[in-house]
């Protein structure tokens, strides 16, 4: 019960340094993290599967780190995930315990057998409570954290201001990479549109902030000068494509104010970071995803399976990394499986390289959209519609999730979907049509949903 993971000795080595501080001023040290690990071990008794309901508070982040350094396997879920979605995950995966953000432990049904290497489970679409999980070893997540710490040049003096959820792979990677170097994570439950966020950024002497494209659009509206605190040096962006003109604006501001603006790309399945755009490449490459991070290599694969070598030609990204997941889990039987990918991931995203070797995304897998930085698997929405006994289908584009239903009350269906999921509600639109486009076989024609959508008047939304 005390063997631990590659994280255990690293975190123990940071001793009495503060690991995390929250809005209430609660500060917990790395020694507190290890004490929390011992407390969890005593309460759980043996290697367990636990669900951690994460919040942006010091106890929640400390418990996350304690679990990372423990022999237990953890699934991080958002604390505000709808109770019925949470219950569905508990019924499916049968965790031994559910831990609240404040550390309260509730026994679960238990009985799931775990592979010895399994340490962390991440939802492929946290906001929908998707039952499809990515399985990771502790060593894989450490390799990614180490690579991030290397290319960002992180030290124990960093104080990242973190508003992203721990259950979101980007938020998790900010925590892990900074914990690795013994920095103090300044976690906040406030968002960029709140005065408390900006007060905290300044008074807590944050050195960096991390955001998805929406956050950078919002900050732009508020004025970039707000970022000119005496201590803020680094802005990182991931979680989707930020429009090139906006990237250029931030790049210009950063260069003129002695700060760093760094755009990055990753996938939950890759643990998550895959590429970054070094600031020196930013001029002329706004909107590009950059170069592979240390330890990662990326090949572009043509339709015939060959590796593309010439610049400007798109192919699917095949990523080789020590942080690639062991594989997916669709149910408890999958948690006993070992590594199935061998460190290689086909991302489903299309990219091309320019003459300088800088990568840009050119297309992507079709049943996945980004809703203000939150990945939404459209299959999850379709499954929820089926549970609600509503004939309908989801499609959409970035920042707009569209649901077309066959007859019925669009407003009521929209309200029910908002209740069921935790993605930003404003991104969800529902329209009703007399009949969905179908092939003669009765099969839904996903490609025709857009045209059917456009034929419904705005008044019907």
């Amino acid at each position, binding site marked *: 019960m005390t063997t631990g993971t590659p994280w255990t000795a690293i975190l123990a080595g940071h001793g009495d340094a503060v690991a995390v501080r929250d809005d209430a001023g609660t500060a917990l040290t790395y020694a507190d993290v290890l004490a929390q690990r011992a407390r969890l071990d005593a309460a759980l008794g043996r290697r367990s599967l636990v669900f951690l309901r994460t919040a942006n508070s010091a106890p929640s982040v400390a418990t996350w780190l304690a679990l990372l350094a423990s022999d237990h396997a953890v699934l991080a879920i958002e604390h505000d995930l709808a109770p019925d979605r949470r219950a569905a995950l508990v019924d499916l995966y049968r965790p031994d315990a559910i831990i609240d953000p404040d550390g309260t432990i509730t026994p679960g049904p238990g009985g799931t057998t775990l592979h010895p290497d399994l340490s962390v489970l991440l939802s492929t679409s946290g906001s929908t409570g998707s039952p499809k999980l990515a399985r990771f070893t502790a060593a894989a997540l450490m390799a990614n954290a180490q690579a991030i710490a290397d290319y960002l040049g992180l030290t124990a003096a960093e104080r990242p201001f973190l508003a992203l959820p721990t259950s979101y792979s980007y938020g998790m990677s900010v925590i892990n990479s900074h914990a690795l170097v013994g920095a103090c994570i300044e976690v906040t439950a406030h*968002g960029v549109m*709140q005065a408390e966020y900006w007060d905290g950024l300044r008074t807590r002497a944050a050195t960096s902030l991390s955001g998805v494209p929406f956050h950078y659009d919002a900050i732009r*509206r508020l004025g970039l000068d707000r970022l000119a605190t005496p201590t803020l040096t680094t802005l990182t962006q991931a979680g989707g494509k930020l429009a090139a003109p906006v990237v250029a604006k931030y790049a210009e501001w950063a260069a003129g104010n002695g700060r760093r603006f760094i755009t990055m790309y990753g996938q939950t399945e890759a643990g998550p970071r895959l590429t970054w755009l070094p600031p020196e490449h930013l001029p002329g490459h706004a909107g590009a995803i950059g170069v592979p991070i240390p330890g990662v290599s990326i090949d572009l694969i043509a339709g015939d399976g060959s590796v593309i070598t010439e610049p400007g030609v798109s192919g699917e990204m095949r990523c080789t990394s020590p942080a690639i997941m062991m594989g997916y889990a669709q149910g408890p039987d999958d948690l006993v499986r070992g590594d199935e990918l061998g460190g290689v991931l086909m991302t489903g995203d299309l990219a091309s390289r320019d003459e300088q070797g800088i990568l840009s995304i050119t297309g992507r897998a079709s049943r996945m959209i980004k809703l203000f930085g939150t990945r939404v698997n459209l299959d999850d929405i379709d499954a929820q519609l089926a549970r609600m006994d509503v004939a309908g289908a989801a499609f959409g584009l970035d920042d707009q999730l569209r649901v077309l239903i066959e007859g019925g009350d669009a407003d009521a269906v929209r309200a029910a979907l908002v209740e069921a999921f935790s993605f930003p509600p404003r991104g969800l639109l529902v329209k009703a049509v007399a009949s969905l486009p179908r092939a003669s076989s009765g099969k839904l024609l996903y490609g025709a949903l857009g045209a059917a959508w456009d034929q419904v008047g705005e008044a019907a939304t």
Partner: protein
Amino acid sequence: MKSLAEVFAESLMIDAASVVDSLAYQSIKEWDSVAHMVLVTALEDNFDIMLDADDIVAMSSVAKVREILAKYDVAA
């Protein structure tokens, strides 16, 4: 020109009846940072004003929004 309640209802995609003075940012799922940005644009368009950034981040409730709009000579 729409009423303040109408602007709120359309921006947050909620029922106008639920737009009461005590309604606060993050007290309902529908009033998150994404909706707040939509609300800001809608307020500016509807009342023909340009909101200061400090006011945007201070709009923590319907009552507070009304109070802030008064500074722009908008009686809402």
